[in-house]
C-alpha cells in the first residue's frame, strides 16, 4: 500500500466512523456536546499520561473516553440545577477542563511530545509514518487499524441497539415506558462519541472531529425523514468529503484535515442551496409564490366584499384601494397586474371589479379558510 492510498483509506474510515454517532447527536440536539467532548478529552489524555508516563499506553484512550463521559455528566448536573441554561453549562464546563489541560501541559509536560497543537489540529499527512508491526512484518499504518476498529465498533453497536437508540432519540418518554433506560442509552451513546473522538483526533485534530460528526448528518437531515437513510447518506457524505478533501489538499499542498472539513461544508452548502425539497432556492421560491398568492387572495376578497356595497367607489377605487389595504403602491400594482392577467378582475372606469371567475375563486378560498 502506498502512502496516498493509506491516507485516503484513513480519511474515509475516520469520517464514516464519526458520521454515524453524529447522526444521533444531531437528532438529539446535542451537536455542541461533541464540540465540548472533543476539547475535554485532552485533559483525559494528559491525566492518564501523568499516571502512565507512556504516550502509547491504552490507558490514554480510556482516560480520554472517561473524561468525555465526565464532561457530559458535569454539564448535565449543572443544567439540572436550573440556574443556567444547557448551552451556558456547556460553555462553562469545557473551557475550564480544557484550560486545566493546557496549564498542566505547559507546566509539566514541556519535555515530551504532547503538545496542544497535535491534539487540536492533528495532521493526517503524518499518519502513514506510524506503522503497525505484527510478528516483525509491516502490515500498514497504525491509524488504519485504530480507525478501522472504531468504524466496526460504531457499526456493530449502532446496528445492535438501532431500535433502542431510535426510540430514545425521538421519544424518550416512550422509551422509558417500554423499559429501556434512556439514561443508560444516553451515556452509552456519549461513551461511543468520546471513543470516536479519541480515535479520530490523532488523525484530524479535535476541532475538526466536530465537522465530521455534525457535517454529514446535518446534510443528510436536509434530504430524508428516515433514520436508516440518514445514517446511510451520512456515511456516503462523510466518505465523499474524505476523498475529495484529500485530493484538494494534495493539489494545493495544504492541511488534509482542514480541507476535508471544508469539503463537508461545501457538500452541505450544495445540498442546502439546491436540494429540491428543502433547499434554499426551493424554500425561497415557495415563500415568494405563497406571498404573491396571499396578496392576490386578499385583494380579491376585499374587492368582492365591497363591490356591491355603498362605499364601493371609495373602497375599490384604483386610487384609494391601497390606503384601505395598507399596501405600498408597488405591491398593489403587481398584484393587480397578476389578477388582470388571470382574468380574475377587470377595471371599469377607475374601479376594480371582480369577474365571475374571481368571485368563484373567492368563494373557494372562503371555503378553504372558514369551512362551509
Amino acid at each position, binding site marked *: 500500500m502506498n502512502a496516498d492510498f493509506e491516507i485516503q483509506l484513513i480519511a474515509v474510515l475516520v469520517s464514516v466512523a464519526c458520521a454515524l454517532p453524529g447522526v444521533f447527536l444531531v437528532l438529539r440536539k446535542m451537536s455542541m456536546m461533541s464540540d465540548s467532548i472533543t476539547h475535554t478529552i485532552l485533559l483525559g489524555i494528559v491525566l492518564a499520561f501523568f499516571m502512565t508516563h507512556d504516550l502509547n499506553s491504552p490507558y490514554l484512550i480510556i482516560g480520554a473516553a472517561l473524561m468525555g463521559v465526565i464532561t457530559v455528566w458535569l454539564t448535565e448536573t449543572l443544567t439540572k440545577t436550573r*440556574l443556567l441554561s444547557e448551552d451556558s453549562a456547556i460553555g462553562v464546563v469545557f473551557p475550564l477542563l480544557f484550560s486545566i489541560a493546557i496549564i498542566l501541559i505547559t507546566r509539566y509536560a514541556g519535555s515530551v511530545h504532547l503538545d496542544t497543537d497535535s491534539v487540536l489540529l492533528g495532521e493526517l499527512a503524518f499518519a502513514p509514518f506510524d506503522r503497525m508491526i505484527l510478528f516483525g512484518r509491516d502490515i500498514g499504518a497504525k491509524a488504519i487499524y485504530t480507525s478501522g476498529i472504531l468504524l466496526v465498533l460504531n457499526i456493530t453497536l449502532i446496528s445492535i441497539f438501532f431500535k433502542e437508540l431510535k426510540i430514545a432519540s425521538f421519544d424518550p418518554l416512550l422509551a422509558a415506558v417500554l423499559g429501556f433506560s434512556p439514561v443508560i442509552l444516553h451515556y452509552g451513546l456519549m461513551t461511543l462519541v468520546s471513543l470516536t473522538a479519541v480515535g479520530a483526533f490523532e488523525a484530524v485534530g479535535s476541532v475538526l472531529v466536530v*465537522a465530521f460528526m455534525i457535517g454529514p448528518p446535518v446534510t443528510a437531515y436536509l434530504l430524508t425523514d428516515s433514520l436508516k437513510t440518514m445514517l446511510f447518506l451520512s456515511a456516503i457524505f462523510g466518505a465523499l468529503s474524505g476523498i475529495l478533501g484529500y485530493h484538494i489538499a494534495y493539489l494545493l499542498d495544504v492541511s488534509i484535515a482542514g480541507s476535508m472539513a471544508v469539503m463537508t461544508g461545501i457538500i452541505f452548502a450544495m445540498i442546502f442551496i439546491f436540494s429540491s425539497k428543502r433547499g434554499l432556492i426551493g424554500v425561497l421560491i415557495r415563500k415568494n409564490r405563497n406571498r404573491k398568492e396571499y396578496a392576490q387572495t386578499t385583494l380579491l376578497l376585499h374587492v368582492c366584499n365591497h363591490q356591491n356595497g355603498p362605499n364601493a367607489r371609495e373602497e375599490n377605487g384604483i386610487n384609494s384601494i391601497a390606503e384601505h389595504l395598507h399596501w405600498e403602491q408597488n405591491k398593489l400594482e403587481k398584484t393587480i397586474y397578476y389578477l388582470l392577467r388571470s382574468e380574475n378582475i377587470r377595471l371599469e372606469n377607475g374601479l376594480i371589479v371582480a369577474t365571475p371567475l374571481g368571485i368563484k375563486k373567492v368563494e373557494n378560498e372562503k371555503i378553504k379558510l372558514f369551512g362551509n
Partner: protein
Amino acid sequence: METLILLLTDYTFQTVAMGSALLGIISGVLGSFAVLRRQSLLGDGVSHAALPGVVIAFLLTGSKDTEILLLGALLTGLSATLIIMSIVRYSRIKFDSALALIMSVFFGLGLVLLTYTQRMPNAHQAGLKRFIYGQASTLLQRDVVMMAVCGIVLLTVVVLFWKEFKLYSFNPEFAETIGFSGKILNIILSLLVVLAIIIGLQTVGVVLMSAMLIAPAVAARQWSNRLWLMVVLAAVFGAVSGVVGTLFSSAFVKLPTGPVIVVCITTITIFSLLFAPNRGILHRIYLRRKNRVQFKLNGGANL
C-alpha cells in the same frame, strides 16, 4: 510582599493586566446579553470562525498589524454568524447543529489557509497561530489602547440602546409588536458580541473566548434579577479575573495567562452557583430544610 510590589509596578504586567481587565469588562457586558438570549455558544462559533479571517487578512495585505488581522477576523466572524442565522431560518436545522457545523468548517478553512501561508518562502507568517491559543503576554500598549477605544464604543452603544436591548432580550415578540425591528436589533446585538469576541482573541485565543463571554454573565445572573446589576457585576467579575489571572501567570513561571484567567472566572462562577443568596444551591438546600422543620412544627407527619 516585595516581589508583589515589584510585579505590580512592572510595565509589562500593567499593560497585560490592563488588557485582560478591559477584556473582562467588555465580554462581561456583552456576554450578559448573549447568555440571556440563549446564544451563549455563539461566542464559541464566532471565535473559531475568526481564524480564516485572520489568515485571509494577512494573505491580502501581508501585514501583521493586529488591527488589520482583527478586521479580517471581524468579517469572517460576522459572515459565519449570518450564515448560521440563515441556515436556522431557511431550513429545519437547529441552531446548535448549524453552529457546530459552521464553526468547524470555518476553522478547517482557517487551517487550510494557515498551512498555505506556511509554504510561503519567507518566514513572515510566523505568529499567526497566536490567535488560536491567545498570548496575553504579547499585548502591546497600542493593543490595549485599541481595546479601550473599542470598549468605549461598545459600551456607549449598549448604553444608548439599553432599553431596546433589554426589551429584545427578554421578550422579542413584544419588542416587535410595539414597533422595534427585531431583525435590526438582532444584527446590532450580534455585531457587538462578535466585536467583543474579536477583541478577546489575542488575549485568550479562540478556544477559551467562549468562557470569557459566558462565565461572568452566568455568575452575575445568580446574584441579581435586575439587568443593570447583572451587567455591572459581570463586568466586575470579568475584570477581576482578568487581573488576578494575569497576576498568577506573572508570579509563577510557565503559567499561560489565558487558561489561568478562565480558571479564575470559572471559580467565581462555581462560587456564585453555590453561595448566591436566593438562587444559590446552598440557599435552596437551606430553604428545603427550613420548610421541612416548619412543616413538622405545624404538626406535619414525619417525613
